[in-house]
């Protein structure tokens, strides 16, 4: 059997560190001898520490694309990072085309400024948050998460953001709010590819149960690899739910609605059999048509991609309690 048993392989962190260093130097990120030494020293403790070492807050003056970030205790893996080029050129963002390489080519026109998120539904009063205010609401954290697509591929991504719960607190939802619904940006003129090869009804919507949305792992995401989100990855602000299949992590959010009933979600409406509302990563529950027992790690040579898929994508300790009374074979 080629399948690896354990996902976290400390020895290969060397790759993760060099990837990050290469990435940073490519962006003319100034790190002096001291910073470099710190980064090397940090190799043993994980990518988040390296990110911290490489992100002294003072060096950001002219780097418009760079974000000020702080390390996070919620970085959950020390696995080698998926290269930036793969995270940004292997995307499912159907508004910009059906092939993985399409969004990188087509998402240039996504108007990420001005941008705001409308908040409505079961809240004390409807609100609108400007993206600039959202960026300042809480310190932006570097969080490395595994990302698992229902198509049985996976990545390791250094996201930038803060817990969605921090944003939800600002929204002041009413006690009757049981679910959160997310709406992605949609405009036929910008996203001309929306009708291509797919029968999806737009705009893209997703949803989470309130306790899932409040779990600290659920990330309101503004960047990756320490810089502003590239358009094709869901700029300027998206959700990341690392223990669920990728489509639960809605991109380019323009509206958040608090509701009392389970909301309709895009892929679930496409095919309820294939895409459950919960869509927790689960190697024991196959989805139509794929087996979910294994996955292919993106950005590695073909003979080295195969991995065993982990329950809740490896986040059982953090999120298992949310589902302890549920039959996950039925509520998938």
């Amino acid at each position: 059997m080629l399948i690896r048993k354990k996902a976290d392989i400390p020895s290969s962190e060397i790759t993760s560190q060099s990837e990050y260093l290469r990435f940073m130097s490519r962006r003319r990120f100034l790190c002096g001898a001291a910073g470099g030494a710190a980064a090397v020293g940090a190799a043993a403790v994980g990518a988040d520490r390296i990110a911290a070492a490489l992100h002294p807050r003072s060096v950001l003056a002219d780097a418009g694309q760079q974000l000020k970030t702080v390390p996070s205790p919620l970085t959950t893996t020390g696995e080698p990072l998926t290269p930036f080029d793969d995270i940004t050129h292997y995307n499912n963002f159907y508004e910009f085309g059906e092939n993985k390489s399409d969004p990188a080519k087509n998402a240039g026109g996504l108007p990420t400024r001005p941008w705001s998120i409308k908040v409505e539904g079961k809240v004390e009063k409807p609100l609108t948050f400007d993206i600039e205010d959202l960026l300042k609401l809480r310190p932006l954290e570097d969080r490395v998460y595994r990302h698992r697509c229902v198509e049985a591929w996976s990545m390791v991504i250094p996201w930038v953001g803060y817990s969605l719960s921090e944003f939800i607190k600002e929204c002041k939802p009413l006690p009757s709010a049981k679910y959160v619904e997310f709406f992605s940006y949609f405009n036929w003129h910008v996203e001309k590819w929306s009708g291509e090869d797919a029968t999806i009804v737009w705009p893209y919507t997703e949803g989470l149960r309130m306790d899932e949305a409040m779990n600290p792992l659920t990330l309101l995401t503004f960047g990756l690899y320490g810089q502003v989100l590239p358009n094709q990855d869901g700029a300027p602000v998206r959700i990341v739910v690392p223990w669920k299949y990728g489509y639960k992590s809605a991109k380019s959010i323009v509206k958040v609605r608090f509701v009392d009933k389970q909301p309709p979600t895009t892929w679930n409406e496409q095919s309820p059999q294939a895409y459950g509302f919960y869509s927790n990563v689960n190697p024991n529950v196959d989805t139509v048509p794929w087996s979910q027992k294994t996955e292919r790690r993106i950005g590695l040579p073909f003979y080295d991609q195969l991995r065993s898929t982990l329950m809740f994508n490896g986040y059982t300790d953090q999120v298992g309690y949310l589902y302890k009374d549920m039959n996950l074979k039925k509520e998938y």
Partner: protein
Amino acid sequence: MSRRILILLKTIVWLACLAPIAWLVWGAVTSNLGPDPTGEIAFDTGATTLWLLIFTLAISPVRRILPGLNWLIKFRRLIGLFAFFYGTIHLLAYVGLYAGFNVGLMLSDIAKRRYITAGVAAYLLLIPLAATSTTRAIRKLGGKKWNLLHMLIYPAAALGVIHFWWQQKPGVLKPLPATVVLVTLLAVRPVLAWRQRRRAARAVAA
């Protein structure tokens, strides 16, 4: 057709049929298969198999519609065998890269995952066709039996298209072009047969 032109055409067909595998080998050696090389290998070999099967199936109707292209028959076996070649690599990619040579996993896949069932069935149907592709086998079987046996290419190609649809994300229409072409090819055959019968009847009446 002169021998020279035939050799030239055969060379072109050989090169065209080898291009996809050459591309993959080159890509694998230079790590140029994109972010998901396993997916690329599986998809490219699968799509090549399906399209070569479709080309193989297209040769007869094209010859009937355009008698000037009668010589195309000289390429049918070659293209058909290349379809089998790519189908074999496609299967091996599944066995090694997706199933990790895990026999239990493969058996459960074949039983439970209908797209794999369809794909494996399509491949099994191609085996007797490849095995009886030699001139000796044709002689031994006799034209009629051989033709009958090689009708298996229809269910094989249809299963190939079904296999493509069934492993698609529901809601995605990527297999549509291949489906349209295959359905057209299958539909055109009875029409051509009917036209031929009518002509024959007219000839008798005259």
